[in-house]
């Protein structure tokens, strides 16, 4: 088994790559061949990866079935690993690009709602200010990621919110009449 090859479809930043593991320490990425050695290093998530000798100091965290969060140079990347069968199913169902974006504005961190600057029924353009949240003594402006129509405002000024709590729900412009 360890002498054989295993093929995975690995997605990073919305792009899928083919990674073949084996035989032995060989690993191929979209046809580029490497000798690779991965070893756990440090207290928790630290890993050392050597690829053809090049030394990469990484932090890796398992984030769900097939999902890995890997940190390099202090930046975190979400990487999804599918085996061949799962990748084929994913391709057929047309969902290769991951979950569709939910049309809502979530609190990016715990904090206090200072102001909601939109009302239901209003139309906002990408970049428009939607809400102000105070956290760590600083006011943080939250802006619309895309053109949309405000469907629902779920919080009010003065309210404490958790991370990822939905503040405003949108109806996508596309879906709007």
């Amino acid at each position, binding site marked *: 088994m360890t002498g054989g090859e295993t093929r995975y479809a690995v997605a990073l930043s919305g792009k899928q790559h083919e990674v073949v593991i084996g035989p032995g320490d060989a690993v191929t990425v979209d046809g580029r061949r490497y000798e690779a050695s991965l070893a756990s290093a440090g*207290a928790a998530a630290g890993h050392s990866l050597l690829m053809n000798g090049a030394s990469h100091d990484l932090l890796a965290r398992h984030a769900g079935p097939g999902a890995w969060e890997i940190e390099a140079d202090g930046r975190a990347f979400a990487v999804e690993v599918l085996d061949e069968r799962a990748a084929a199913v994913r391709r057929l169902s047309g969902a290769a690009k991951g979950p569709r974006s939910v049309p809502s504005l979530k609190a990016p961190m715990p904090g206090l709602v200072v102001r909601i600057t939109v009302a239901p029924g209003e139309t906002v353009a990408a970049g428009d200010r939607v809400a102000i949240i105070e956290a760590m003594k600083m006011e943080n402006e939250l802006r619309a990621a895309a053109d949309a129509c405000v469907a629902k405002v779920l919080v009010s000024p003065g309210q404490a919110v958790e991370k990822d709590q939905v503040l405003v729900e949108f109806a996508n412009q596309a879906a709007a009449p």
Partner: protein
Amino acid sequence: MLVANRGEIAARVIRGARELGIRTIAVFSEADRTSPHVLHADEAYAIGPAPASESYLAVDKLLDVARRAGAVAVHPGYGFLSERGDFAEAVEQAGMTFVGPPAAAIRAMGDKTEARRRMRAAGVPVVPGTDSPLASSQEAEEAACEAGFPVVLKASAGGGGKGMRVVRTANEVGDAFAAAAREAQAAFGDASIYVERFLERPRHIEVQVFADRRGNVVHLFERECSIQRRHQKLLEEAPSPLLGPGERERIGEAAVRAARAVEYVGAGTVEFLYHGGEFFFLEMNTRLQVEHPVTEMITGADLVEWQFRVASGEPLPLRQEEVPLHGHAIECRITSESPFEGFLPATGVVRELTLPGGPGVRWDGGIAVGAEIGLHYDPLLGKLVAHGRDRAAAVRRMIGALAELRIGGVSTSAPLLARVLDEPDFLAGRLSTSYLDDHAELFEDDLSESRRDALLVAAALLEHRRRRERRVRRITREARPFAAWRRSLLFGTAPATP
């Protein structure tokens, strides 16, 4: 000596006091029970729940602990109560020494409009703007028009970028005034706002000054702190990369004049905006500054030691002409923020902490493995400082140190700072306080092929191993008949044949 602070600055002050043989007394909120400053102090006392208003800002509790523990002095650090004249007074009235300037000097500089008046009188150049707090957004609009757009609204009691708003047209003034006042009220308990002309792409250059109780005042050269985001400094260096010796002398003298004007004592920082060959007084911070280590590294002076010596009545250890200037130093503020997600505050538990080492590298930290990074306090986790023979050497050393620094469990500013240190304008010393706005490319994704392949391979290998291990576990389990049997009995189905 009681340290009325937390985090890295409390640790720094405790180190300085310990080296002088001074007994150190720490205080901690419920969120900080096992923070480094608690572990390193000789004694530590609880002062209440996490919110600063109920702990680190609670003057009565602090004085009560100081009295009970027999403290003879109080060091305020920076932030919190460090620039509250009332606190300095209360400490002195309790019969203890306040390690900082006299309350009068704090007040003179703390009221930003008052400070502007006094600086103008002392012949220190000041940016055009109002000399008194604005009563209303109406008044703000008028003052703004007079100073000339763009203008900046600032908290009279402020500092550190809180309660600040830049306004470019008259009809934005109203909103900005309200927001700035709200922030000022929250941060300083005082909503007063004043207005100043806003200088486009100025550099932020500040001068470290030191004064003793005998009227001696020296400066320890300048620091360049132009790399900022929303008036929060991210990276500081000393000396400034583009100041000539003549300018260095002139700005140093202006800073000494500013300190003398308020009969200053102790460590202080006079901040200037530098624009088109001119410099303008911005404000004076009447305390030890976050970025004091870069000054320590180029001068060899221990500023916390100087603070204690001055507070105990000793004269300054050096005359102006004796202050040395060796090489170049850079400080990176490592904050719990996600620079690539709009600097959102990051929270989490510190799972790994690997510190860089070797020559010319210094870490001033306030965290340890297991520390929970919440939202109650400033996001500053620690400061990484590098010293080199010259600016290029210090930059290279800092790049290496940032690469070695590993903080697991919470996003930090480190990766952005590593990019800044490798950016041509930064390397050429073309700095301004708009630097980050002008370099949007620093925030772009730009994985090299080898790095991207490394991420893909790491994830694939991890998933591969995980699946293999699961398979091994499954096989092992199936080989143990009782395991399956037990499960099936519990869930009421017939036992699987082993």
